[in-house]
């Protein structure tokens, strides 16, 4: 098995190559730029046969992936921060069209090039699956798994996998590169479920008409049939007045819920084949007998492991919940954890201005219905790329433990480092 000391961006490029993505939309933005450069080299050398489209902007990048995916390509693009915000419009469309596009997001804050998670978390309404990585190995592995999750017929939703800008994108560490044959066994070639082909068009429409018209007039409320979301590329059919499209959101939400199981299955299978797995939606690290746990996403989870190990050496019963999937949100898992611990300290590398930490809100909500709720504390750390040190997370864990043992707390989040 090959391994190399590589930066996170290279790990992304390797994932794309091994997954045999064949349509890459490339637009540069710091700190993602080298991803498209590596891919450009792979394509130019012939190592990766693909259509490499050097687009003129991020919206075009995403929409090219969307339409290419519908036509039958396994599509990929990457972006960061401002580019993702600009692309936001297009993200909604890719998700709405049930196109299994995979995108790497090198997390970057707003109005700075340094990392935080606000860029991708701000897209939580788009219907994309969001997976966060804590080291470059996980980045490579997740990139491959992303396609399997996205293309699963129970899901068919686009997947974004994230890595912290600079901290992972430009930091080199040893990464094992899976063998192509093994990846081919794990990830079959992609076929679009409903390609827009002239010769099958009439039949497709007849099929749709059979279900859709149901003998009603064109302006009457339309009753969806199961599997109707498959015809999402025939959007124009249901744009008339009187057509109730609320069901579309419901269908999408249900697919997101189904994705939870699929993400876990794919992770387990990956572990069996490649020897590495990441817990599915989240990983519990030393939480078995914990009184208190802290929650972190991305590289903050990696640093948190050091803190947990240190404190465990001192006999303190603390654990880490490494949150990998923010969408779909693993509320059942958190509910289960909430039954076992007295306090949860959530570290948000993000903020929803006017309310608070995004992960904090989700965790609190997940445990609310428990008979005996754990206390949930919130912390902001690392926003706009501020460095987060072991000692900072230690403070979080120590305080969470204190609260677990009866200390006072309220719902105001603490700003680490001010």
């Amino acid at each position, binding site marked *: 098995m090959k391994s190399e000391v590589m930066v996170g961006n290279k790990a992304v490029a390797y994932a794309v190559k091994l997954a045999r993505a064949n349509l890459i939309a490339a637009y540069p933005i710091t700190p993602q730029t080298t991803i498209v450069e590596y891919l450009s080299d792979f394509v130019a050398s012939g190592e990766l046969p693909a259509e490499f489209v050097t687009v003129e902007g991020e*919206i075009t990048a995403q*929409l*090219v992936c*969307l339409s290419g995916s*519908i036509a039958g*390509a396994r599509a990929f693009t990457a972006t960061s921060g401002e580019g993702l915000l600009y692309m936001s419009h*297009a993200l909604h469309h890719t998700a709405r069209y049930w196109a299994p596009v995979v995108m790497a997001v090198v997390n970057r804050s707003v109005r700075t090039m340094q990392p935080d998670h606000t860029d991708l978390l701000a897209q939580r309404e788009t219907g994309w699956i969001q997976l966060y990585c804590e080291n470059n190995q996980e980045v490579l592995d997740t990139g491959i798994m992303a396609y399997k999750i996205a293309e699963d017929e129970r899901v068919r939703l686009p997947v974004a996998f994230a890595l912290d800008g600079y901290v992972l994108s430009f930091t080199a560490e040893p990464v094992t590169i899976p063998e192509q044959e093994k990846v081919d066994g794990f990830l079959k070639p992609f076929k679009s479920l409903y390609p827009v082909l002239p010769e099958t068009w009439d039949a497709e429409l007849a099929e749709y008409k059979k279900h859709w018209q149901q003998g009603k007039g064109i302006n009457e409320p339309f009753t969806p049939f199961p599997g109707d979301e498959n015809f999402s590329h025939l959007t*124009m059919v249901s744009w008339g007045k009187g057509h109730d499209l609320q069901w579309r959101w419901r269908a999408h939400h249900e697919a997101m819920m189904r994705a939870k199981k699929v993400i876990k299955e794919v992770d387990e299978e990956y572990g069996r084949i490649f020897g590495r797995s990441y817990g599915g939606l989240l990983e519990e690290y030393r939480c078995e007998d914990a009184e208190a746990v802290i929650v972190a996403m991305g590289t903050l989870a990696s640093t948190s492991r050091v803190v947990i190990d240190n404190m465990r050496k001192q006999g303190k019963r603390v654990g880490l919940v490494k949150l990998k999937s923010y969408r779909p949100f693993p509320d059942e898992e958190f509910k289960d954890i909430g039954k076992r611990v007295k306090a949860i300290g959530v570290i948000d590398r993000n903020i929803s201005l006017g309310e608070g930490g995004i992960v904090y809100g989700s965790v609190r909500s997940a445990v609310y219905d428990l008979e005996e709720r754990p206390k949930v504390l919130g912390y902001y750390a690392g926003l706009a790329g501020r460095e987060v040190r072991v000692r900072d997370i230690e403070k979080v864990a120590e305080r969470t433990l204190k609260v677990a043992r009866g200390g006072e707390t309220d719902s105001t989040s603490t700003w680490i480092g001010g």
Partner: protein
Amino acid sequence: MSKKMSIRDLRDEEVVWSGNPACQGCGGSIVGRLVFKALGRNSARVEVASCAPGFMNIRVPSFFGPAFEGAAAFMTGLSRGYKIIGREDIVVAGLIGDGGTVDIGFQGLSGAAERNENVMWFTYDNEAYMNTGGQRSSATPEHAQTTTTPIAKMSRGKTSEKKNVPMILALHHVPYVATASIAYPEDMTAKIVYAKELKGFRYMHIFSPCPTGWGTDPKDTIKIARLSVESGLWPLYEILDGHHMRLTYKPRELKPVSEALKVQGRFRHLKDEEIASIQETTTENWSRLLAMDGKDIF
């Protein structure tokens, strides 16, 4: 160069289904019908927000994206995707309104042209954002009344010139750029049939009268299109590879622009000086085009 055609050369096969809910006398419907008649059924069509997706019952796979700025991106993605699955034979054609071409779609258009994507872009130009009720676009001609360039005390219609997109695209040196009009279906079809055999980015800008938005009688749609060509307001030409230019219709003498303008409600307010100004610009433009005719430009 496109070869001359007669009405008998137009195929009988209809590539649209009847019964579309467009306005009476919609020029865009005619554009859609003639374009796809010429392209045939082995094509795919892309549309974005505009009147088109709501009304053109075209019998080819349709990719409609409400991302208004995304026409070029959708066409690129489809074209590349078809290539990947070994179906480069499918003609990817976009039927895009002027808004999605000259304004919000302009970035994408230029990008796709510069990359020489293998697609055919058909702009049906009704010279405003008609789908949303008739607001001006940068394709609206100078002096025209629209809902955002009204005729009132402080405003006398659009104050800036119409953006000349065909020439801008010619400077991108794409394989084919042409203007066309529904009043000249043989000329339009000849151009489409010719361009269909080429590879790379092909662009056609088609005049598409809109009775609802222009305040015209539905029955006059073709008449207005014809008068606009015959007065030089809408010259018909083609440019190959951004170099070789040819006027495909040369009336011996141009009709006065007032004939085309006076039947349109959106020009009802024009004073004599304004008509004279339009006449001057049109005559000048025509002379310039005559000078370029048959030559290598740019």
